């Protein structure tokens, strides 16, 4: 569950402006004239990424989130009442309405992942990072949240960290991913056992022959 919105929190900035105005125009241009409301979702994403970019350079670091000022700015750009943007932003779990760590760990705990040991993976995260579900580390590097199924059940258990999936996890592999991230290294994305996409655990079973 993402953190709820708080309009009076001290971290809410006074104003927000898009840096990449070209991108904003490109997004608005995708929709017919008068239907600019459709641009709300990509613009929210753009705002979150922009804040994330700023956060990576800040000290302590933080990850991408959407301030109230950004939502109001988007409402302004799309020419809709602010509440229309608030509705969308609060509905989707991927829009963060409060600051998060630079690495947002979204651990799946839905049935298939849980059967494959997601409880251990979560425990590892909590122990390694010294935080509980929904909390952020003091250095601002990690936030841990629980999510429902992210659709990678074949490679369960898995977590999503920012834009990337890390699959086929266990205690050791989870630790190594976290260590790499703490050290500023980019861990291998995807399966941590070297499995390609969602092929069978025993290796490829079909399409073995090279195509002519």
């Amino acid at each position, binding site marked *: 569950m993402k953190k709820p919105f708080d*309009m009076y929190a001290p971290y809410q900035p006074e104003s927000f402006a898009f840096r990449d105005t070209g991108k904003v125009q490109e997004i608005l241009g995708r929709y017919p004239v008068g239907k600019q409301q459709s641009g709300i979702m990509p613009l929210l994403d753009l705002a979150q990424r922009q804040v994330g970019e700023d956060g990576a350079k800040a000290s302590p670091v933080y990850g991408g989130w959407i301030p109230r000022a950004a939502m109001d700015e988007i409402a302004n750009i799309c020419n809709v009442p602010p*509440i229309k943007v*608030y*509705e969308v932003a*609060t509905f989707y779990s991927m829009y963060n309405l409060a600051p998060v760590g630079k690495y947002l760990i979204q651990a799946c705990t839905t049935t298939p992942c849980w059967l494959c040991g997601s409880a251990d993976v979560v425990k590892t995260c909590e122990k390694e990072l010294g935080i509980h579900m929904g909390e952020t580390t003091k250095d601002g590097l990690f936030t841990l949240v629980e999510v429902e199924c992210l659709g990678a059940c074949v490679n369960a258990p898995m977590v999503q960290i920012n834009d990337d999936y890390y699959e086929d996890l266990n205690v050791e592999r989870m630790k190594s991913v976290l260590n790499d991230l703490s050290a500023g290294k980019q861990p291998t994305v995807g399966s941590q056992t070297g499995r390609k996409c969602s092929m069978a655990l025993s290796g490829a079973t079909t399409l073995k022959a090279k195509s002519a």
Partner: protein
Amino acid sequence: MPKLKINDTEIEVAQGTSILQAAEMLGYEIPRFCYHDKLSVPANCRMCLVEVKGAPKPVASCAMAAGENMEVFTGTEMVHKARKGVMEFLLINHPLDCPICDQGGECDLQDQAVGYGYDRSRYYESKRAVKDKELGPLVKTVMTRCIQCTRCVRFADEIAGTPDLGLLNRGEDAEIGTLVEKMIGSELSGNLVDVCPVGALTNKPYAFKARSWELRKTETIDVHDAVGSNIRVDARGGEVMRVLPRLHEEINEEWTNDRSRYAIDGLKKGRLDTPYVRNAKTGKLEKASWEKALETIAVKIAQTDKNKIAALAGDLCDVESVVALKDILDNLGTPHRDCRIDGAHFDASTRSGYIFNTGIANIEQADCILLVGTNPRVEATLVNARIRKTWLEKRLPVGLIGEPADLTYKHTYIGVGPDSLQALASGQHSFAEKIKNAKNPVMIVGMGVFQRADGLALHAQLHDFAEKMGFVKDGWNGFNILHTEAGRVGALDVGFTPATNGMDFAHIVEGTENGKVDVLFLLNADFARALGDNAFVIYQGHHGDSSAAHADVILPGAAYTEKEATYVNMEGRAQIAKRAVYAPGEAREDWKILRALSTALGKPLPYDDLGTLRQRIAKEFPHIASPDVRVVAPWKQFGQAGAVKMEPFHNAVRNFYKTNVITKASAVMTACVEKFLSKNDERKAA
């Protein structure tokens, strides 16, 4: 025109009619929560499920258009089971607090749970609780009761034009709110209570006061503006408990504004409930009997030069009392009378010059609207709602001359005063083109335009402007005056304006200072202008407001909920208000007081009951005799040619919550002013 069968009855309906509407035409009742006649269709409550032959699943009838050869069943086993399932889901998180809920007894959920609810719950988990929202002094929220039908969201968005509410979060956390703290700054917010099918939004001043089945319901007419909204007054004993709107498609549809709904607590405060006579020695007002009060007046009038007697009729006067007062004045032989106590100058001799000629409902036929010196959102909220409805439908061009305002729809701001009218007439402003190209242009002129010295000249100028710009043509009259007071058009219709050689409002008030007026009769007339000390003032009305303080004799009258009376709305439609409760104490219906006064004066008026009085009115003013008919007036010349000053127009009403004596006495309206109008708002100074 699809033809379909509903429960084996064939019906042909217009393209686009939903199954729910078609079923309703045949008299089949379909339960619903989110669907509302006047709002868009989100189909999110799923209560209106029906069976359609061939469809694999039950179908939400509110959102499914009737199709050719469809076979619909509204009462089968499958339908009943599906609705029971929906009801069970809705009740999972709905609290069982009906005994302490104000909606109890008139709750859609309660009613439909009787038809579709299980008699016990299969749900053992905890129910969710939702934090209540602060929506101001009019609407109380108990958000835990909300079933997320989103009617309030759509009402605020579509009808009121204040899109502040939304459905936030998702799943179990979904709730109605504003996310950021925000007041619903709408003049129509009371209707949120009506559209809410459960007890989530309820009437705050009425909270825990009464149960719906204890109330005596009287269908009557609202007098807080000149729209003449149809309302229902719910009373218990001698007390008006609440006011609800009643459906009238041509006037208020099914809405009413916050003033008519919530100002009723003003009916209980500051009332005049006994006659008063000023003691000549002490100079203080003293309680008196009716005989003494009437005799005092009779003695004074007998001593006075008849040409020095004047009368003013106020904003809440009904037609009957105005006619009775006019008859008394005619018997005395004085020409000094006026009903325009806001000091407006316009030509009252031509009816088409002072009514809303187009008709409120016909605004929907307009394809271009020009507002002159008015903010209809404040002056006549439901006219504004009608303009907004038309704007939503066809995005028609709306132009505004006068004070800039947030009208809840997009408009072109043209200018501040008469010079903008000239700019339009000469084609200098681009909006002139839009008016000329329109088939049915409508122009709405506010009372504020005439509340200045050159009002008469402006009236004439507006007449010529309307003809020149094509607002008035064969088969279409788009010239409209937006009145702000309920009693005004009726008083104008019966000719309560200065007769030959008579003085108008300004001269009468001056006359009390310079000795031209010795006796002044105020019928429900309250105004801020001070009166001279030498004149003998008689005040007849229901509230002891500013003018009553000047009075030498006070005659306690009845408020609009306490009398049978006729009011003519701004369109020239006569409507009859009914008595919901009796007037307090010694107060009496206004025409009866005047009838008694005429006897004291020695010339009894020739009517002893309301029937004869109405016959008398019908004889001279036949258009008032037929209730609820909009009597149109022929287009004629009006106004008086003269110089017009290029000063900006000012709106007649600034403070929506404080307009007449009833709203001034209302604590709820005072709370609204505090809450909704910002601290330094100039609107606060009424």
